[in-house]
């Protein structure tokens, strides 16, 4: 057998969810203490345990809500059809939320919860921004025509209210999930922003207008363009509303750069203030 043949054989046995092949003793050395299939079994258990552990470390709340046995059963089937494609092991869960959504037996709330947990992992490990933009450096004359660039840790997702409750409560038994929620808040799907501020991952529900404005801004619309969304015919209140939203984005450290609007250097007076 060639090197490629031997590696293919090893990988097949080590990742298999069925028993070892009949010809295993022809490929690997057995001893009085351990047979070849027992020796390969160490790798087989290690492979599944390690990847399942990686899934569990990312989707801790989802695992809790599903229950350990169901999480393991679903996780093993997922891993068989979605083996890791990334050098970092935790990325093996990249498609897990979508996979959960395809399963009739799993409530949508849990797929939402997994979506939230995956987004939080993304935020946790995202590269640091090259710099953070300060509102102090805005050139007010040009700001309306400029475009905002957001930090890479930020993402916005549609998540059901029940998933948010499950995340914050931590202690909802899985059987409660089979009971349909009567709460309007739990049934509503909200736009949820997930980001990292320094070392801390956070998430927050956005109002509908803010989510739309962010979507426009992230797609490259100018400040004046996305601020039009706040137009309700009451200019002062609308301007205040838009200002509050954009100010929040700065305060949350979402803005990595403002293209075409910053002053060339910080105003010393403002910096020292």
């Amino acid at each position, binding site marked *: 057998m060639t090197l490629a043949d031997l590696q293919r054989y090893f990988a097949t046995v080590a990742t298999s969810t069925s028993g070892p092949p009949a010809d295993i003793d022809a490929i690997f*050395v057995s001893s009085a203490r351990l047979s070849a299939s027992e020796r390969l079994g160490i790798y087989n258990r290690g492979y599944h345990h390690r990847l399942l552990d990686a899934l569990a470390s990312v989707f801790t709340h989802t695992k809790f809500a599903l229950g350990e046995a169901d999480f393991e059963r679903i996780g093993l089937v997922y891993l068989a059809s979605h083996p890791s494609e990334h050098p970092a092991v935790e990325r093996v869960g990249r498609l897990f939320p979508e996979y959960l959504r395809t399963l009739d037996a799993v409530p949508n709330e849990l797929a939402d919860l997994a979506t939230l947990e995956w987004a939080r992992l993304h935020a946790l490990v995202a590269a640091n921004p090259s710099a953070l933009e300060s509102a102090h450096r805005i050139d007010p004359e040009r700001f309306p025509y400029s475009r905002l660039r957001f930090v890479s840790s930020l993402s916005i997702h549609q998540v059901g209210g029940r998933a948010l409750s499950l995340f914050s409560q931590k202690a909802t038994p899985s059987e409660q999930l089979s009971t349909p929620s009567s709460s309007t808040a739990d049934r509503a799907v909200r736009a949820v922003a997930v980001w990292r501020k320094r070392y801390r991952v956070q998430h927050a529900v956005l109002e509908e207008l803010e989510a739309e404005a962010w979507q426009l801004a992230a797609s490259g619309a100018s400040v004046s363009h996305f601020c039009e969304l706040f137009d309700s015919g009451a200019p002062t209140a609308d301007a205040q509303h838009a200002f509050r939203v954009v100010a929040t984005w700065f305060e949350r450290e979402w803005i990595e750069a403002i293209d075409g609007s910053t002053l060339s250097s910080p105003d010393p007076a403002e910096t020292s203030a």
Partner: protein
Amino acid sequence: MHRASDPQQALSACANGDGEPIRVGFGLRAPHYDEILKRGIAADFAEITSENFLGRGGRAYGVLERVRSEKPVALHGVSLSIGGVDPLNESYLSELAALADRIEAMSVSDHLCFGTFGGHYAHDLWPLPYTEEALQHIVQRVKHVQHRLGRQLLLENVSSYVEYRASTLSEWEFLAQVATQADAGILLDVNNVFVSAANHGFSALEYLAGIPRERVRQIHLAGHSDGGGFLLDDHGSPVSDAVWRLYERALARFGNLPTIIEWDERVPTLVELETEATRARSVSNAWFSSSRERAPEQP
């Protein structure tokens, strides 16, 4: 990033056995990050798992910056799959090279094994058949990696639980040949030698004797457990007494090399980990003191 003094120079000085105390370090692990951010580490250097820092920011990178501002840092990878038949992941290599350059890594190492199959990652250190075909395949890949990194790669021997009937070389012969032909360094994991020797019934001392001393740059130590009929390299306990004794034999053969404690399961407190690293320093110091009192070794 502010950095401590030239780590490569420090490593070379230590590897030459110029009488300085041994450099001991340990692998940085997430449960210790908060404490490390506050007070740094009490060790000569640190090792990080490369994959946990590639293209990343946040707290992990903050920890790396904190440690690197005071100490040299070694990069230790688990996903290179140097023995695999899948093509090397070039974007991974680019990121690894960038990280090594950015932190002026003391060394870059990975394992002599394979861990990819059909475009997928096993996230395990699967053993290789020790054949001439595998040897030539790996030598070419190591040369390529070293070219991409612009530096020597250190290859670590893995612990293993199975051997291929197709192997025509012993593990130590294979490791020695790869390192020599590719001009690579060796990161000798003494615990892995011990575990594999027990699992396959070969002599750990014969293994050490078969490794070219001029190729060995660093040493790893870790704990193992009894898996029931075999030893499991689980990095979940203190270094065993038997491995400490084998470490002394390794020091006798390879000199006063930088030594790293690895601990991945049932991770102890940072202080306990630092104490284990200090024990490596004590063992080394004691061994070298007593060896000076004995008759000098014949060349």
